[in-house]
């Protein structure tokens, strides 16, 4: 089984095998247009994908943050200065003026 992201209107990009992910941790994927995505699965096996770039430092590191859940919402904490980002909406939970892009994800069979 693979993890696929929607990178434009209706094309899905296969990023990796689902088994490449440890629940609770992330990996980074290089997209065809040179952008980077951070992929995660949570404890229940649900996949998430957001931009890898930490908007506070500019560094491509969000995939290396720890994920968690608060009030039922999944988030990742930046490994640099620990701001939290909602994994579904991309909104920064510590500064509402900041957000990261999110990608739709699905589990593919190929």
């Amino acid at each position: 089984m693979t993890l696929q992201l929607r990178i434009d209107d209706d094309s899905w990009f296969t990023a990796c095998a689902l088994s490449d992910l440890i629940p609770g941790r992330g990996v980074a994927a290089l997209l065809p247009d040179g952008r980077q995505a951070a992929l995660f699965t949570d404890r229940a096996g649900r996949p998430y994908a957001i931009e890898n770039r930490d908007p506070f430092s500019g560094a491509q590191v969000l995939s290396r943050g720890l994920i968690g859940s608060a009030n039922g919402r999944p988030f990742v904490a930046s490994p640099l200065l620990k701001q939290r980002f909602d994994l579904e909406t991309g909104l920064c939970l510590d500064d509402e003026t900041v957000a990261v892009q999110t990608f739709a994800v699905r589990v593919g069979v190929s």
Partner: protein
Amino acid sequence: MSTPPTIVVVGHGMVGQRFLEALAERGVTNRARVVVLCEEPRPAYDRVQLTSYFSGRTPDDLALGEPDFMDRHGIELHLDDPATAIDRESRTVTSRAGRTFTYDTLVLATGSYPFVPPVPGKDAEGCFVYRTIEDLLAIEAYAKTARTGAVVGGGLLGLEAAGALSGLGLATHVVEFAPRLMPVQVDEGGGAALLRTIEGMGLTVHTGVGTQAVTTDDAGVVNGMSLSDGSTLETDLVVFSAGVRPRDQLARDCGLSVGERGGIAVDEQCRTSDPAVFAIGECALAVDGRVYGLVAPGYEMAETAAETIAGTAEEASKAFTGADMSTKLKLLGVDVASFGDAHGHAEGCLDVTYSDSRSGVYKKLVVSPDGKLLGGVLVGDADAYAMLRPLTGSVPPVAPEQLIAPAGSGSVTLGPSSLPDDAVVCNCHNVTKGQVTACSSLPEVKKCTKAGTGCGSCVKLIGQLLPQSGDKGLCGCFPHTRSELYEIVRTLRITSYATLLDSHGREEARGGDGCEICKPTVGSILASLSNGYILDGEQAALQDTNDHFLANLQRNGSYSIVPRIPGGEVTPEKLIVIGEVARDFGLYTKITGGQRIDLFGARVEQLPLIWTRLVDAGFESGHAYGKALRTVKSCVGQTWCRYGVQDSVRMAIDLELRYRGLRAPHKLKSAVSGCARECAEAQSKDFGVIATANGWNLYVGGNGGATPRHADLLAQDLSDAELVRLIDRFLMFYIRTADRLERTSTWLERLEGGLDHLRDVVVHDSLGICEQLEAMMATHVSGYRDEWAETINDPERLSRFVSFVNAPDAPDPSVRFVPERDQIKPDLTFLTLEGTRAG
């Protein structure tokens, strides 16, 4: 084009600086030229904390305001150039360097000068005053050749100066004319309690005697004092601290009205008799006929004057009519506080007192006939000060006796919750409880209200007023502290984070994903207790990113590498390998503050390649990324040094190898010095060892960093085996009971019973757990394996070290470097640019 108005400020002390900040906050610095004449050779500093210079704060630490404050607001500051004359006719000020400034508004903030009684010999070599950093530097230098010191004056400042002299190693005398110490603040009972405590600290106090003369030797150097009771005192150094007088000479010379006993007379807006001239701070005589020698009223005057100058004449909204004289003495070891109407001057008021002459505790509250708290004096135990001061002026919720009775005898400790919202909790900045509770953290409080940034005596209370105070839980997932979780994991033998979260987490967090706070904490507890490879199974998902990649993440997403160099000892061959690795991978190389070498700028996929070479050469992980043992620094010791009495290098290496890899609530640092000269700085470490002729002294709880703390001596003259056993116990007891990210220093400060309790537990085994603690350390020592050696030999583990899961060979193109002093540094411009391009 009209020229902007000019505001000239004379004096750049605490109040002058506050005035400038108040002007800037009101935007006045944008529309006016502001010129400041400063007599001292350095810009404004925290005079209130002056004495902390002797406990290690540097003059730079004492500086007030942001470093770029003057530049940012375009304020012209002339250091070392006092004003010498004012011409009110032509509205000009002349300085000593001969500069002349024309002002539209003039603000005098010249402070006070120390009063030196006109006794013979007062100007002799060895006589000092205590007001400026320069005074302290001079006293410090002179004290090196002195053995005895005397302070003239037993008030607040005199006692502070006496504490400082005694801290410099001088046998110290205090000579006070009044019949008791601190006569302004405390009453007779308080003075008696204070006397006992001060004498208990080894100072000699002479009350009720005046200083008649300072005597000198043939060379004119101080050698003693003669006192009004006919006695004499031998002393090498005299500090005058007999009160201060407002510096009003400039004002007098230009014909401004001054008070009979000094002070530049001002109205409620801090205007002098000339409406173009203001006076604020200690040089001003307020409308209530008082000159205030404290910083809080000065700050209020600064705000008032700034408000008046910023506003139009009609709408001067602020007024300074007088202030409260509350003080808390910061002298080490003696708690003294007085607040409100401490002497009971109000009509018909009543006293409630508690006194225990054995322990030197004296407390008095002054209460009005209708039950309002008017003021009080606390000596020997001033814990209640922070709570009582804000209650002043209102009827306390419980009987006054209960507020001052000793713990356990019917006393009631008022929680901060019982304070009304308008109670002033920070006196220095006049901040109320309501303003504090509107914020959510101490940094926010400091930023938004300035509370806590003055004398600091309110910080404890503020901490209690802020949220999360009721809930000691680690985070949103667990209601327990780290040490409670440790006990749960240990006694229930829990081996997984998920099990712990689902069985002991907060209701709403069970079944969830936890968070970035508790995951690494529990990861560390599991590692301390089980000693396995930290990146196996579920454990891998718990580690902070640094532990996950066994390296330290840097700001551009690259990593740094710190190989362990036990005791700081390294062979030329190993140094060459480090050099070659750094050269081949293009890494920035720096000697760290911990006697080893840091290599910066590696990409994730380079880490295993680099470590393969390092491991081959015999290096191990230095755990610079872990909450674990960092370094054990050493000095060369007996082997080379002419003073050394033990082999400090060998001991440092032994200790570093023994405790390497030990996971703890926070990082652990150590050092071993070969003699009391302490070249390895062991007393600033979590555990530090200093050689003696008979063995080793063990110090614990030291810290550098943000809040430095000198370590405490735990045990003396230990043999090698005794030393190691005691450190084993100490470390395991810390790991077991400390909170998350609590260094040994803060842990020891918090530990109930402090050092004595610690000694009872780890030296005298009062809890009967030492055997267990030693056994746990033995398990750690025997189970230690190098994390990097394990990683590079395991393909499965290695597969994690890639920049991209779908392109394992591709380097991350955003990690770029530019040259810097013949090496590299991160290309941060690229990272910002990339953001603008993508966004």
